């Protein structure tokens, strides 16, 4: 009888210990998951017809992510594309282009600050950093405001996101300094600037502002505003950006809406996207400067409408039509193609306790 009682007591103690350890394990589970290096890739093939000019552009954008320990991350993204188009003689010629989107090392110093160094995407607005990859963008045609600021920077950056005194608002920020690089593949400007945003998880609304000061050439500055909203009641995303340069690069804005047809049984994989934008060239540009600036040298209005169909969660077919209105350059823009996204671990993923590099 006594043995039975003790056996029961030991059994209960073991049960309690097990439950306690499980509980502790559950709390620390996320920390115990050791990340592995991975390769992410976006192979894509798009045919684009701009004002009757056909371009076929297969492209590949590999992204390497190497976590080091608990706080470090190396990120490197390359771009490779081969654009086929007819030349003046009518021959179908391919032009290979490649580049380095970014190659940076990040150190997560604490819950407020992440330090990044290397070549990185300039934190101005939301399109460049978050929406530009082929796989992510809702419309393959880029906004006209993109070239107003330097797309890439070389130097250091402080960034992070944290609750702004309440759980209802998150503050996110990024401040950077970039040095000049004249290499034709890795060109960057000497500049400084940053972005600050407030994200409200409840209504799923983000508003923010950006600033960039060029520290070379005409020493112009640029300011930007951005907003993004996803109503809780609808599978709809509304986003917008405004950018203005004090120099010769003009100003403009775009408004984009993306609606996923979740509520229709046979069309739930379909996404409808639309964008309207206006670009205003800087006043008093000489003809020579306007010609040198290309698209930034003339007022342009543009409207795009597109469809994205997710064949699988990682394969997307896209098609869009746009109409561009520019003085003497009105054009239809057709785009059709596919994107595939893969994620490949570069180390065994079995066992949560395996060490990172």
């Amino acid at each position, binding site marked *: 009888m006594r043995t039975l*009682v003790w056996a*029961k*007591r030991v059994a*209960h103690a073991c*049960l*309690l210990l097990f*439950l306690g350890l*499980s*509980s502790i394990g*559950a709390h620390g*589970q*996320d920390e115990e*998951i*050791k*990340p*592995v*290096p*991975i390769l992410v890739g976006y192979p894509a093939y798009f045919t684009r017809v701009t004002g009757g000019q056909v371009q076929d552009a297969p492209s590949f954008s590999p992204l390497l*992510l190497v*976590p080091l320990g608990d706080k470090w*991350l190396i*990120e490197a993204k390359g771009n490779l594309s081969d654009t086929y188009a007819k030349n003046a003689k009518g021959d179908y010629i391919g032009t290979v282009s490649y580049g380095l989107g970014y190659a940076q090392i*990040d150190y*997560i110093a604490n*819950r407020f600050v*992440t330090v*990044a160094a290397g070549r990185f995407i300039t934190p101005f607005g939301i399109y460049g*950093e*978050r*929406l530009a990859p082929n*796989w*992510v963008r809702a419309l393959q045609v880029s906004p006209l405001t993109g070239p107003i600021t330097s797309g890439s920077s070389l130097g250091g950056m402080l*960034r*992070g*996101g*944290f*609750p702004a005194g309440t759980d209802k608002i*998150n503050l*996110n920020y*990024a401040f950077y300094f970039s040095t000049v690089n004249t290499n034709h593949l890795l060109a960057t400007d000497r500049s400084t600037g940053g972005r600050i*945003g407030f994200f409200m*998880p409840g209504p*799923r609304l*983000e508003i923010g502002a950006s600033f960039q000061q060029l520290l070379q050439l005409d020493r112009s500055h640029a300011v930007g505003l951005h907003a*993004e909203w*996803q109503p809780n009641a609808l599978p709809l*995303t509304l986003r917008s950006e405004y950018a203005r340069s004090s120099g010769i690069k003009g100003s403009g804005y775009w408004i984009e809406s993306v609606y*996923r047809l979740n509520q229709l049984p046979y069309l739930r994989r379909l*996404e409808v996207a639309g964008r309207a934008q206006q670009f205003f060239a800087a006043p008093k540009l000489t003809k020579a400067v306007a010609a040198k600036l290309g698209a930034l040298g003339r007022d342009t209005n543009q409207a795009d409408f597109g469809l994205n169909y*997710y064949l699988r*969660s*990682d394969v*997307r077919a896209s098609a869009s039509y746009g109409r561009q209105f520019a003085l003497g350059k009105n054009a239809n823009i057709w785009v059709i193609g596919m994107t595939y996204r893969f*994620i490949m*671990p570069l*180390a065994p*993923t*079995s066992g*949560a306790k*395996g060490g990172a590099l």
Partner: protein
Amino acid sequence: MKMKFSINGLSLLVALFLCLALAAAAKTGNGKEKGKDTSAAAVTVNHNAQDDTMRLEGEKRFHSNCGRCHAAPPKFPPRTMATIVRHMRVRATLTDEEMHLILHYMTQ
């Protein structure tokens, strides 16, 4: 003879007392064990409730943050997911709490 009956009676009383005492002790012991059962169950319930809360909160954060830019990805192996979430913490400036909640949700 009377003494023998007394001893027998006393023995009987002592035996009865012992039986009652053991029964009481056993009852008390059972009560303690029941208490332990209750506390163990409470730990389990608490753990499950906390786990559910974290998962639900993680799902909410996942949709409100990740869905802003791209379609919801499938769940990947935990160690792959940990790298992706760290990348997204930097790229999309997720908060520390959001990163942990999303990782918890995506690895369940």
